[in-house]
């Protein structure tokens, strides 16, 4: 019994039973330990990954359900040898990180938001984060950084348009 799925752009065959939570397969079989599993019950959001285009709690997804689908984890957000993604860089610039356990999930939830809504307001960012528990930061800086990343991207977009005309 095995499952074939695409993980961070690469086709992988995994051997855990089909009911094994995807989060455990990512962490234990594929050694992608960036994805955390702080509660294992779908409430904390530290295991959030993309399955196709949706940000989901991977501790609740049986790996069998991911057959043939595309999974993206925090490790996919930036080239390991390259620069941070704009969202990651904004978090670093804002000094948003503390213990760091929630960030892999936070970054996926916010990436999903920015993919669907490149120019969110403060309330939209807060809503996108409501499934991610952070016990250290009190959230405000994470929200600030997400808004800064969105603004920077919009600024670059405008600049590109300006250059093109």
């Amino acid at each position: 019994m095995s499952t074939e799925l695409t993980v961070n752009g690469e086709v992988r065959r995994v051997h855990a039973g089909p009911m094994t939570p995807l989060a455990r397969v990512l962490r234990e079989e594929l050694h992608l330990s960036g994805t955390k599993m702080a509660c294992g019950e779908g409430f904390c959001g530290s295991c959030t990954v993309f399955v196709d285009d949706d940000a989901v709690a991977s501790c609740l997804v049986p790996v069998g359900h991911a057959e043939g689908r595309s999974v993206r984890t925090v490790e996919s957000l930036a080239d390991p040898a390259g620069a941070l993604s704009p969202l990651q860089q904004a978090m670093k610039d804002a000094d948003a990180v503390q213990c760091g356990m929630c960030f892999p999930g936070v970054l996926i939830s916010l990436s999903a938001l920015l993919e669907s809504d490149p120019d969110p307001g403060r309330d939209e960012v807060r809503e996108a984060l409501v499934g991610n528990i952070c016990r250290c930061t009190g959230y405000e800086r994470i929200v600030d950084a997400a808004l800064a990343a969105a603004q920077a991207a919009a600024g670059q977009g405008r600049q590109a348009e300006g250059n093109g005309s």
Partner: protein
Amino acid sequence: MSQVIGANLPRRDAEDKLRGRTMFTVDAAVGGLLHAALRRSDVAAGRIVSVDLEPARRMPGVRAVVSAADAPGRYGITIADHPLFAVDEIRYLGEPIAAVAAETLEQARAAAAAIVVEVEEFTPLITMAQALAGDARDLHPGWEDYDVLIEGGRRARNIGWEATVVRGDTDAVFARSDVRIVETEFAAGRQNQTPLEPRACVAGYENGRFVLQTSTQVPWAVRNSTARLLGVRESDVRVVVPPVGGGFGMKFEVSIEPFAALLARASGRSVKLVNSRQEEMQTALCRENAEIRIRSAVSESGEILAREAVVLMDCGAYGGEQPFLTSMTAHTLGGNYRLGAVRLVSRAVYTNSPPNGAFRACNGTYCTAALERHTDEICAALGMDRVEFRRRNVLGDGDIGSTGQVFEGDVLAPMLDRMISLRDSGEPVRQADDGRLYGTATTVGTWFIFVGPSAATVNLNPDGGVTLVTAGVEIGSGSTVQAIPQIIADSLGLRVEDVTVRAADTDAAGYDGGVGGGRTTVSLGAAGVAACDEVRRKVFEAAAEMLETSPGDLSLADGHVVVNGVPSARITLREVAEHAQQVSGPISGSGSFTGTGVQPMSGCAAGHLIGALDLPVFAVHECDVAVDPDTGHVEVLAYRVVQDVGRAINPRAILGQVQGGVVQGLGYALHEEITIDPRGKVRQTGFETYRVPLSGDVVPVRLDLYEGAPSIGPLGVKGAGEVPILNVAAVVSCAVADAIGKSVSQIPLTPQRVLGLILERDGESVDLRHIPQGWRENVIADPDELMAAAGVGRP
């Protein structure tokens, strides 16, 4: 003088944490790792009739099973009352009975479940009222035989420790006819730290020594307690700490490390033990629930002539931190204000509930809430302005605290003024005509830095950079990745990137009190600076030879040794390091630090491990709330903090700590509470039922850093990470009371409770009938003897 101090430098661990690359203890995966599970008690109280481990040993994949016979010792902070596994008697639901290591986690859990435990159940004593009842069973029938690790506290049956304060003739003041007496009751719930990384450990047994990689705040305490529990030499335990995924105090004691250690020795393999979220909820070393009576005699002109208070602290099944924390009442509930005479008693009470522990500003949160509610009730009784009353009564330069300590510097009064400026500089809160009730409050708080011993070594490397070796742990607060390297860089005239900070390893670094009590930047920083002093002296000796001058004419700047007044005469630290290596050997320095040991007034404090504060810290908080009278829901509209930081090494990092600490405090004030059913089971099993603040619940905190108050810390610094939670419950309780016009005497202020207060429903008031009214009726010791020791004659 320095571009490093006061700079908002980034965290050096941010990038890996953002890439998902940081390896926490829960992420450890080495080849051949066994997985462990604990068999825990499913009843809260009883006599163990038998434990049969054999069924577990026969289960597939099992490599080791250990139990009480393998761990002969008991540990504690003041009293060694806590065995690793339950011995003879079960005292809380979830108490470990045996531990299993197997090839897979599922096999370990199945084997643990197969262990047969026979228990003769007792009726559990869940509440402090039950444990203090006259006919209550002793939770620790052998309490008089336990090893006393620290002397001083009175003990009796279910009272694990009692600390008292007596200063002045309180009886005489309360008997006066010209005083007004104000009484307040307060009760606070139990709060779970819920760091996202649970308690976790990977243990190995190498060359006859235990090697523990663990998620802890206190590597040296884990070393000591593990050795004590296992009956081995302390030097046979090595503790290594990777980045820790949050602690907040819960990891300030040994926890699951000794189980993993025993299993590693028994199996000959590395063993990983990680608590599930459910185990974390059932057995977290929470902030204790507490019950408080406080009364004061005040003059019509607003002086506090006498105060007395009783504080009950639920330590759960074993003493742990609470006997130690009874010391804090003197400085929190007995703090903030000038008191003519004062009498306090704090009692750590055993119950059949999971042991409690340390949580950010332990004891201070609820004592400050009780004190500040009491202060507002005094103001109401006298018809005085609440800020003005505080400004007139807060401790200032030369005033004496509850235990007779003389305070230095006017700090709280100017901080109150700064709060008013902070409020006036922002947008006023708009009170909409929406039927909600609006309130505001301003509270003061006194906390301290738990200074204690630290050791540091600084090695000057051949490239001219330095490595700082300490037992400091990075739990997320940033101390070891921001403030500490900044302080070291400043001390040696280096760039921060030239300072490497070694992760904690008890084989490499000297003794340290651990990361907690706001002490890291102060104590490790001071030890580090002392080590730098030795490095500097040696560098100057070597460089003086090279530059043909005397050491006294040299200084350090920009990675160079410079001859004072001759900017062109300079050499790089790298050249000095290379030269020294050839001539005298590599340069290193060692340094150490501990508190100054400020003492209380003779006879004033009994049973106190901290009788006076080496390094007090103050905070002023203010908030605006709106309460929905139909639902009881409290919304915090705005939040302001003026915090005494001594000196801000990295102001932006401090704001991060303040925002996070305030939000944890809002959870405590409004909705976080661990409750225990009559069988002893914690009702909250995870994040579904234990509601921590989410992104939609928070407000941005406006912060004013108050610098310049006296401090024994390096560069005048005070720890900034612990204190932000101190007066959150206080200010929210006071603001809600202001909004609804009713007395608030219990936290968390859930909608149901607030609605009950608004509607004056029965059952919403606190029942403290088990605490007698007077102080004299609440002490184990002879009250007259305590009074006499403090120099007060018999009434």
